[in-house]
C-alpha cells in the first residue's frame, strides 16, 4: 500500500511537471499553430534564472524571477522570430528547432554542460506521511503548484476577455480576425504564458531533480509533446488528464516492469489513443 501511495505521489509530481510544460505548448499550438521546439529552452532559461537568483535572494523571489525571465524570453521569441513567419508553419518549426539547439549550446557555453546542484529550500527535503506512506514534500509542492496553475489558467480562459479571445481563436482563428480582433496580440500573450509556465516547470524541476542542466528541457519536452498529442491540442483540461495518465503509467510500469518499460508504455499509449481518436482525448477546445 505504502509503495502504491508513494508511486502515485511521484507519478503525480511528474505529471505536474508535464502539465506545466504541456499546457503552454498546447495553447501555443492550438491558437498559433506553432509546434514550439524552443519550449524546452524556455524551461532551461527558467531553471537557470531561478538557480542564479536563489543564491542571492530567497527561494520564492527566485522562482518569481525565473518565471518572469522565461515569460519575457517567450514573448520576445514570438515577437522577433515567429511573427514574421505566420502562414509558413514548417519554417516556424525549423526556426524553433534552430533556436533550441543554439540556445542550449549558449547555456552550455555560459554555465558548462554538467549539471549544477540546485539550492533546494530545506522544507522541500522533508517527508510527509500520507496514508501511511512517507512521501517527499517536493512531490506535494509540484502537484499543488500544478493544481493552482490549472485553476488559474481555466479561470483566465473562462472569465476574462483575453481568455475569451484565446478560446475563440483556438476554435476558429479566421473568424476572430474577421470580427476585427487582433489575434496576434493573443499570440504574444500565449507565448508569454507558455514561457512563464515552462519557467515554473524549470524551477520546480530543479527542486524535483535536485540539479539543473542545459539538456533537462529537451528530455522533458518529448514527453510533454506526447501529453499534448494525447490530450488534444489546444485543450487545457485534456492536457491535465493526459499528463496524469502519462505520469502514472510511466512511474508504475517503470517500478513494476523492467527499466525503461514505462517510457515504452507511454509511447504505446500515444499510438493507441491516436489510432482510436486521432484528435486526442478532447478534440480542439480550449477550456
Amino acid at each position, binding site marked *: 500500500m505504502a509503495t502504491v501511495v508513494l508511486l502515485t505521489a511521484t507519478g503525480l509530481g511528474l505529471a505536474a511537471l508535464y502539465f506545466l510544460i504541456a499546457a503552454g505548448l498546447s495553447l501555443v*499550438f492550438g491558437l498559433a*499553430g506553432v*509546434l514550439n521546439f524552443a519550449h524546452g529552452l524556455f524551461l532551461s532559461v527558467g531553471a537557470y534564472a531561478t538557480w542564479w537568483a536563489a543564491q542571492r535572494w530567497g527561494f520564492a523571489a527566485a522562482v518569481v524571477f525565473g518565471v518572469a525571465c522565461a515569460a519575457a524570453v517567450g514573448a520576445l521569441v514570438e515577437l522577433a*522570430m515567429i511573427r*514574421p*513567419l505566420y*502562414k*509558413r*508553419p*514548417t*519554417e516556424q*518549426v*525549423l*526556426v524553433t*528547432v*534552430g*533556436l*533550441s*539547439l*543554439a*540556445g*542550449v*549550446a*549558449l547555456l*552550455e*557555453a*555560459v554555465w558548462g554542460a554538467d549539471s549544477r546542484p540546485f539550492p533546494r529550500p530545506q522544507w522541500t527535503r522533508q517527508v510527509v506521511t500520507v496514508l501511511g506512506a512517507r512521501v517527499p514534500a517536493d512531490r506535494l509542492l509540484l502537484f499543488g503548484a500544478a493544481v493552482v496553475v490549472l485553476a488559474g489558467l481555466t479561470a483566465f480562459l473562462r472569465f476574462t476577455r483575453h481568455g475569451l479571445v484565446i478560446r475563440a481563436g483556438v476554435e476558429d482563428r479566421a473568424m476572430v480576425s474577421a470580427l476585427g480582433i487582433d489575434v496576434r496580440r493573443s499570440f504574444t500573450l500565449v507565448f508569454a504564458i507558455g514561457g512563464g509556465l515552462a519557467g515554473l516547470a524549470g524551477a520546480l524541476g530543479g527542486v524535483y531533480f535536485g540539479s539543473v542542466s542545459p539538456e533537462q528541457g*529537451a528530455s522533458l519536452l*518529448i514527453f510533454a*509533446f*506526447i501529453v*499534448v*498529442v494525447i490530450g488534444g*491540442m489546444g485543450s487545457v483540461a485534456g492536457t491535465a488528464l493526459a499528463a496524469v495518465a502519462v505520469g502514472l503509467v510511466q512511474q508504475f510500469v517503470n517500478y513494476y516492469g*523492467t*527499466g*525503461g518499460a514505462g*517510457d*515504452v508504455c*507511454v*509511447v504505446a499509449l*500515444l*499510438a493507441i489513443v*491516436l*489510432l482510436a481518436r*486521432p484528435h486526442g482525448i478532447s478534440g480542439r477546445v480550449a477550456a
Partner: protein
Amino acid sequence: MRIVRRLAPLVVLVLAAVLPWSTVDIPGLFDGPLNSPGTLQLLASCLVFGGLAMGYDLLFGRAGLLSFGHALYFAGGAYGTDVLITHAHWPLWTAAPVALAGTVVLAAVLGAVALRTTGIAFAMVTLAFAQVGVVLVNRDPGGLTGGEEGLPLDGHGIPGPLIGVANTVNLYWLALAFLAVAVFLVHRVDGAPLGRVLAGLRDDERRVSVLGLSPYRFKLVAFSLSGGIAALAGVVYTLLVGGASPRMAGTDLTLSLLIMVVLGGPGTRWGPVLGGILYTYLDQRLTSAGGHLPGPLAQPLFLLGAVFVLAVYFVPGGLAGLRRRLPRLGGLPRRPTARAGGDTLPEGLGLD
C-alpha cells in the same frame, strides 16, 4: 550544355574516387594531406551524412513529410549490424543485410501507424517512436547495446580490408559507394511516377486523393525506402567509426538532418547532399577547433543553430536555391512551379 550538366556528377564521382591517391595538402581545410587516414575519415563521414540527408529529403523535401524520428532507422542499421556481429558472431555479409531488412520492416510497421496522422501530429508521433529507440539503447537491455558507452564493433566478423587505420581508404570508398547508391535511388524515385505522386502529395494531398490515388500507400513506400537508406547509412557509419553509440539514435541527429536538408535546399537534386557534406564538415571541424574560439563560439551547435535560423529567414531554398536567386550565370531557364498554400519550402522537381 545539357551534356555538361549530365556528365558533371559523374566527373565529380570519378574525382572523389581517385582522391585518395592525391597527397595534396590543403592547409586550413584539412589537418593532413588528402590521403591521410584522418582526412579520409572526415571525408567519409561527410559522404555518409550526405547520403543520409538525401534519404531524409525523400520524406521532407520531396513528399513534404516532417519526420522527427529518422535517427531511429539510422540507429537500427548501426546497432543491428553491430549487435549481430559482436554478440551473435555473424559475419558482416549476413549481419548487414539482415539488419537492413529488419530496419526496413520496422520503418514500414511504424510508418503504417504514424502515417495515419498528418502534419504536426505526424512529426510528434515519429518523435515519440524514436524516443523509444533512445530509451532502449540507453537502458542496455540484456547487455545488448552497451548502454551510454555504446557498443564497440568486434573485429572478428569483419573482412580484413575494412579494419584498421591503414585501411581507412577502403571505408572511404564504401562511404562514397553508399552516397552514390542513395543519390541514384532518390533520383530514380524523382523520375518515376512515385516521385510525381509524392510531389503532388506535398503540394496538395486532397487533389491526389481526388485523382483516385491512395496517399497513404505512396507515403508508406516513401517512408520505408527512406528508412532503408538511413539503415544503410547506419551500417556504413558503424564500420567507419568502429561501433555504435547512443548519439546515433538521439533526436539531435534527426534535427541536424533537418538542418542539413534545409541549408542545402529541400527538394532539389543536389542540395541535400551538399548540405549534409557541409554540415558534417563544419560540425567536425568546429568541434576540433572549439578550444581556440572565445565564449559561445566554442560550441559548434551554437554557431550551426544560429546560421540555420538566419538561413531560414534569409536563404529560403538553401544553397541550391541561391543559384536561382543570384543573377543567372549561364543557368538554364526554369519553369516556374505552381505552389499551393504559399509556403516556400521545397521547390522545383522538374529539372531533369
